[in-house]
């Protein structure tokens, strides 16, 4: 019973992560300028990778219930990977946005003439 709940929850997490990855990719391709694309890319890193890693952690916990004995290393590595993504992704996005501002890229605004 509990392993069925874990299985369903982990697959919901993985599908949610894939959904955020897809939305972020569409955003990177379709949004108009550097800053809005950075927003999409940052969401891919935090939400998409976060949900994917949560799903993998639930799969690992399910493996514990099935008697796997190497769960400790996998779980610790997944937590560490998530922590590093949590630290590095916002810093990289911040640095890119600063570089864009320093390079003189004007933020995109909606065209004012007519109904935009």
């Amino acid at each position, binding site marked *: 019973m509990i392993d069925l709940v874990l299985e369903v929850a982990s697959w919901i997490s993985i599908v949610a992560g894939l959904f955020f990855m897809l939305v972020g990719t569409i955003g990177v391709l379709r949004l108009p300028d550097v800053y809005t694309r950075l927003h999409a890319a940052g969401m891919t890193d935090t939400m998409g990778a976060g949900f994917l890693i949560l799903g993998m952690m639930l799969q690992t916990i399910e493996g514990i219930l099935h008697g796997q004995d190497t769960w400790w290393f996998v779980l610790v590595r997944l937590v560490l990977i998530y922590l*590093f993504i949590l*630290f*590095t992704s916002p*810093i990289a996005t*911040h*640095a890119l946005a*600063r570089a864009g501002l320093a390079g003189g890229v004007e933020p995109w605004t909606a065209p004012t003439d007519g109904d935009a």
Partner: protein
Amino acid sequence: MDDRVILRVGTKILSPFILLFALYVQFHGDFGPGGGFQAGVIFAAAFVLHALVFGLGNAVKVMPPKVAYVCGAGGVALYLAVGYLSMFRGGEFLNYSYLFGVYGYEHDPTHGQHIGIIGIELGVLITVFGVMVALFYAFAGRRRIDP
């Protein structure tokens, strides 16, 4: 002090973990993906990040170019030393089974294989690290930074 507080603090927090991750990749190379080359690049990436955030002058103070050149040559020397040591002990070049003596006679050959691959990978790490840092200094400074 300029206003790049997030980059400075983030670099200070993350640098030791980048170095630790490089060592993890290095010693994990015996069992799975990883190895000396990747670990050397990650190790050098920590210094490149330091140079990008704190400036080339401060990075040269932390990691002088002379040390990078010595690392680039010393790693190859370590690699060759392990290879020739196993050769002088009676095996072929880089035949680790002979590293501590004649095969199956004076010493357990698996011991020599274990230590040998660690020495080789350490040589690769040191060389790749030194060459990567030296290349970055050469490109960033647009000239040879003489020690």
